[in-house]
């Protein structure tokens, strides 16, 4: 029906995307997931899981599969599946939708499932530990370094999304600033006033955040207060850096813990709401199936649909970060091995569906509006008339009056050049709920609610990520100076926090000052690094499968691995060496060097060269782990190397009848 509608030039309803996605997930889960469980992984319910054997009432506890499913989904769902598909909508809705659905069924869900299985058979070991044991010390060390570098790029790029969403927005800035005292209040509430009442405390926190949202409107409407909460990108960047440092060094209960509970509370509610909204209201897709920008001339980020669509959408299709979750808490909760299919494979399919909903939210906007919001001023022009003329010239009509009216309805001064994906996702989501009437009150609250939700989400990832980065750095430096490795030693704690914050802060400042909006360089860097982490996970998965079955089932993980290696190395190579200044870091540096020099030219040239070097380091690290893994595979398959399993020995389960 959708093909016929397209052939007739009729608009396509988003419900077709939902039907396509859900049907593919069901077939994938029923047949491919079942095949993996039965043949490749040979899940065995008679074997006791770590939760049963090591039951301690804390981390290891046999738990109902539905509860583990919810727990795992809450852990893997982040801002990525909302932002990536929104940005990739510049290619049209079709390339992103196909990658999200097919990539998840054949790649992302397979990675999550296999990693969960590997960890399940190894007492819940982490990805790094498994890389060290299965591939070797080099592989383990590279996995550690890769994760640390990825963390730094991740924090910078999601920080940029927040900065771009809150820049010159007193409503948004006030709401997010108010979530800090709300979190401290929640911390005190939970620790001293109502200990243990986490759900109650989260609900109270949520009501307070809704109050802050309303307060944000009052602030934005006040001629006295609005200027006090109107900040430039650089001021917001400074605030984020200070926040990251405080979150990394303050006691966990004061900020990190309550923010995490609050963010999870809002996250689960909004994902449910968005799903209901998309299914019940099923807006029409206004974005074409594919746009002229598949040729690589897109304004939001440069690069052709291959490989950049597959880099831009990482979470939602294949995300290396999930491997860290699948090899963390989840395997310690599964009571039966066969539950791993629903939890590992099934949760990723649900995450993929969240990405489809984000794509629908972006594609249901007028394309002219979508490009006006997401295109940096450096590409389309800073003046509204120039920007709309450029975008209309591309075949996506939009007028300054239309954008002004929309900004007024959304309670913002302007919606031009709000790069980063968050504002256009928020606008699309608000528009779905406001319906065709465009009720301005509903639209403005919906827009700022979505901004608050995304920023809350992202700040939680940032404060937790900074702390994790600090621990990793302490571990790493502890090898050379043992005192630094002691987590309780304050100078070490503060010093490593400063180093981690300075590292992601540097890239964040670079993105904020970038005349092309920052997303062009940083999001692709993040996408490449996240997919490279997935290649590390798939290397471990393939090694385990080769040791178990020889070459018979290695295609299960080697297939997505080959695809990701081709995508990442093509994208990485193009980002470093492409001739077009909009795409290649080095070409852009040369372009700047040969042009008119301003005060910031030298810094911009240095940043381009640094980005090229970081991309190169990523590629070298992953090439090294790939070669190391291939050495193991060839050795095992040729019989030259012992196929030693690191699985824990079989212990019969007594829970099988019980559960």
């Amino acid at each position: 029906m959708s093909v016929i509608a397209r052939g007739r030039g009729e608009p396509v309803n988003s419900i077709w995307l939902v039907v396509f996605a859900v049907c593919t997930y069901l077939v994938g889960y029923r047949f491919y997931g079942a095949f993996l469980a039965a043949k490749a992984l040979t899940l065995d319910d008679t074997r006791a899981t770590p939760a049963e054997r090591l039951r301690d009432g804390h981390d290891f506890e046999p738990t109902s599969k539905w509860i583990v499913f919810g727990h795992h989904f809450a852990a893997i769902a982040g801002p990525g599946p909302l932002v990536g598909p929104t940005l990739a909508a510049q290619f049209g809705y079709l390339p992103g939708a196909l990658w999200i659905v097919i990539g998840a069924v054949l790649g992302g869900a397979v990675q999550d499932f296999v990693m969960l299985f590997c960890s399940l058979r190894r007492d819940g070991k982490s990805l790094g530990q498994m890389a060290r044991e299965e591939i070797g010390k080099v592989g383990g060390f590279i996995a550690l370094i890769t994760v640390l570098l990825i963390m730094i790029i991740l924090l910078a790029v999601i920080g940029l999304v927040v900065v771009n969403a809150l820049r010159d927005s007193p409503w948004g800035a006030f709401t997010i600033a108010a979530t800090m005292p709300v979190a401290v209040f929640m911390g005190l509430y939970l620790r001293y006033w109502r200990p243990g009442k986490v759900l109650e405390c989260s609900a109270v926190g949520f009501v307070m955040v809704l109050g802050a949202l309303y307060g944000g409107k009052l602030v934005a409407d006040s001629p006295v207060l609005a200027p006090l909460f109107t900040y430039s990108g650089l001021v917001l960047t400074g605030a984020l850096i200070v926040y990251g440092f405080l979150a990394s060094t303050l006691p966990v209960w004061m900020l990190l813990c309550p923010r995490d509970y609050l963010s999870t509370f809002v996250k689960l509610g909004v994902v449910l709401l968005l799903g209901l909204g998309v299914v019940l209201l099923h807006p029409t897709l206004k974005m074409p199936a594919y746009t002229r920008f598949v040729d690589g001339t897109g304004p939001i980020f440069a690069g052709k649909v291959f490989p950049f669509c597959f880099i831009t959408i990482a979470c939602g299709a294949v995300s290396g970060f999930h491997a860290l979750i699948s090899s963390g808490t989840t395997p310690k909760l599964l009571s039966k091995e066969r539950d791993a299919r629903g939890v590992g494979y099934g949760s990723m399919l649900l995450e993929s569906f969240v990405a489809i909903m984000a794509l629908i939210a972006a594609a249901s906007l007028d394309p002219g509006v979508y490009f006006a919001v997401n295109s940096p001023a450096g590409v389309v022009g800073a003046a509204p008339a120039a920007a709309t003329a450029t975008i209309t010239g591309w075949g996506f009509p939009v007028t300054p009056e239309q954008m002004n009216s929309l900004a007024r309805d959304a309670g913002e001064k302007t919606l031009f050049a709000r790069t980063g994906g968050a504002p256009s996702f928020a606008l699309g989501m608000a528009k779905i709920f406001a319906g065709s009437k465009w009720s301005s009150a509903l639209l403005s609250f919906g827009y700022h609610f979505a901004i608050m939700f995304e920023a809350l989400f992202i700040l939680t990832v940032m404060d937790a990520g900074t702390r994790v980065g600090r621990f990793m750095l302490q571990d790493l430096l502890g090898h050379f100076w043992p005192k630094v490795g002691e987590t309780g030693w304050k100078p070490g704690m503060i010093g490593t926090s400063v180093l981690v914050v300075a590292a992601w802060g540097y890239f964040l400042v670079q993105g904020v000052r970038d005349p092309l909006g920052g997303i062009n360089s940083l999001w692709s860097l993040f996408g490449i690094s996240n997919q490279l982490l997935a290649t590390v996970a798939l290397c471990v998965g393939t090694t385990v499968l080769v040791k178990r079955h020889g070459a018979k089932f290695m295609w299960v993980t080697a297939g997505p691995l080959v695809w990701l290696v081709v995508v990442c190395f093509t994208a990485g190579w193009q980002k470093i060496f492409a001739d077009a200044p909009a795409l290649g870091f080095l070409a852009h540096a040369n372009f700047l060097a040969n042009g008119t020099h301003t005060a910031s030219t030298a810094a911009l040239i240095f940043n381009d060269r640094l980005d090229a070097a970081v991309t190169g380091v990523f590629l070298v690290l992953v090439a090294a782990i790939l070669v190391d893994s291939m050495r193991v595979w060839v050795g095992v398959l040729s019989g030259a190397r012992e196929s030693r399993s690191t699985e824990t020995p079989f212990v019969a389960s007594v829970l099988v009848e019980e559960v």
Partner: protein
Amino acid sequence: MLALWRRFMRIVVGILDEVFDQSAYRRHLEVHGVEHSGAEWRRFSDARWEGKARRGRCC
């Protein structure tokens, strides 16, 4: 139908209890054979977050 609804709600409450650490706290009280108190919650919460804070949140 009512039974199905009850089962569904039990699962929802179970997920929320697990996600928000309330089940883990109940298990902690059982394993250690202690009663709920503010001090016990703080002991549990500090130990739990010592591990949780070392794990990254997914992007």
